[in-house]
């Protein structure tokens, strides 16, 4: 016999199911209950940096957009600081860096507005290129999926990003890089997420 290690075991994940909106976005489910729903305002009115829009669809293995998913984003501010005690410093008043959006019931499109983040600290001294951390749940997704979105106009930073370089297959790195569209009232990045098939998005075990 040896001594026991007194660790607990993480609670298992279960799918968010088709009605995730009731708990996390009740207005979308069709009713008004809270003084304010959380996650609608990612960066607040005082955020520095370039205002951007990010949009896309989440595509299943048949090629169809998923219409009952929820996506959360976690990002640094324009200085590369996260709004967290260990985030690297102060952030602008009202900057949270976190948001949640649902996919449209008819089209599957999701969209949010924010600011473009800066470089963030890397573990081994190499900075991480600007990126958005994304977490996706839906009916049929048993454990929430972690991925990242990088910016196509940050090619130089992307080339040395330590996480992109962890991906063995160079062709797969492109699944994490969103193209910038100069049309419209805001710079818009398109990030389609493919759960399976050609160009399956890279998902991380973080």
């Amino acid at each position, binding site marked *: 016999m040896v001594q026991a290690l007194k660790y*607990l*075991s993480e609670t298992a994940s279960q799918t968010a199911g088709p009605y995730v909106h009731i708990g996390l976005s009740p207005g979308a489910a069709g009713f008004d209950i809270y003084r304010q729903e959380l996650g609608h305002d990612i960066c607040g009115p005082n955020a520095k940096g370039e205002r951007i829009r990010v949009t896309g669809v989440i595509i299943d293995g048949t090629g169809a957009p998923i219409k009952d998913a929820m996506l959360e984003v976690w990002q640094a501010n324009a200085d590369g600081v996260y709004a967290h005690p260990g985030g690297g410093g102060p952030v602008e008043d009202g900057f949270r860096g*976190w948001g949640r959006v649902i996919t449209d019931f008819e089209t599957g499109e999701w969209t949010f507005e924010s600011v473009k983040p800066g470089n963030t600290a890397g573990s081994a001294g190499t900075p991480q290129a600007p990126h958005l*951390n994304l977490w996706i749940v839906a009916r049929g997704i048993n454990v929430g999926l972690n991925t990242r979105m990088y910016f196509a106009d940050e090619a130089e930073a992307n080339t040395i990003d330590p996480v992109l370089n962890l991906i063995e297959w160079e062709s797969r790195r492109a699944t994490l890089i969103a193209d910038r569209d100069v049309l419209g009232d805001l710079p818009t990045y398109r990030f389609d997420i493919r759960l399976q098939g050609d160009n399956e998005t890279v998902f991380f075990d*973080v």
Partner: protein
Amino acid sequence: MTKPGEFYPRNRDIHPVSLSPGYKSSVTRSPRLALVSLQSTISEQTGPVFGADDIDAGDNDLLTNYAAPGQSPIGERIILHGHVLDENVRPVPNTLVEIWQANAGGRYRHKKDTYLAPIDPNFGGCGRTLTDENGYFFFRTVMPGAYPWRNHANNWRPAHIHVSIFGSGFAQRLITQCYFEGDPLIPLCPIVQTIPDQNAIEQLVARLDLNATIPLDSVAYKFDIILRGRRSTLFENRPEGN
């Protein structure tokens, strides 16, 4: 002075298998390629912080948060309470816990739910709270009903409450479902059975807690939630310390 450190790698053996053909929706919605393992960075070690201004005191009381004044929802009145801890058995204070559920008849208040059981006019079906300094949380609600769903033609979901938890870093983000002790539908449920580990399933089953019951009012169930543990860095010159 401690600062947050790396998370212990997630033990995927206690989580559901992504591609679980018994749960048909997972077939087209599970990645086919392996996840790329990532040593956590500042992006995963940090996560959103919530405060008392974000929510209201009554948001955790589903018996009243949607009911007309003086009325309450139909169903068995229950308390769902527990602690949010990490794998190091440390409390996770001040973290956001959000829940949602069907009403006592097994019907969700959702524009896409068409089950023939009726909507309860006094029941919304969602609640949220922050854990206290000891990681403790509680909700008042009604016992949700079982309901049928289109997977195999005669599948029924056991009574369950969906639970969403943040923790202190985005890598701890978790959504799960809480089941209830003694429900014969638990072992028959294809969603429960996506989890290959029996101990992990039992950890999702809330236990009757008579000591926390309010006599002549509500019966209590205890549901503790465990989030991933992390190394703590005690000194800057001991980056591997714990």
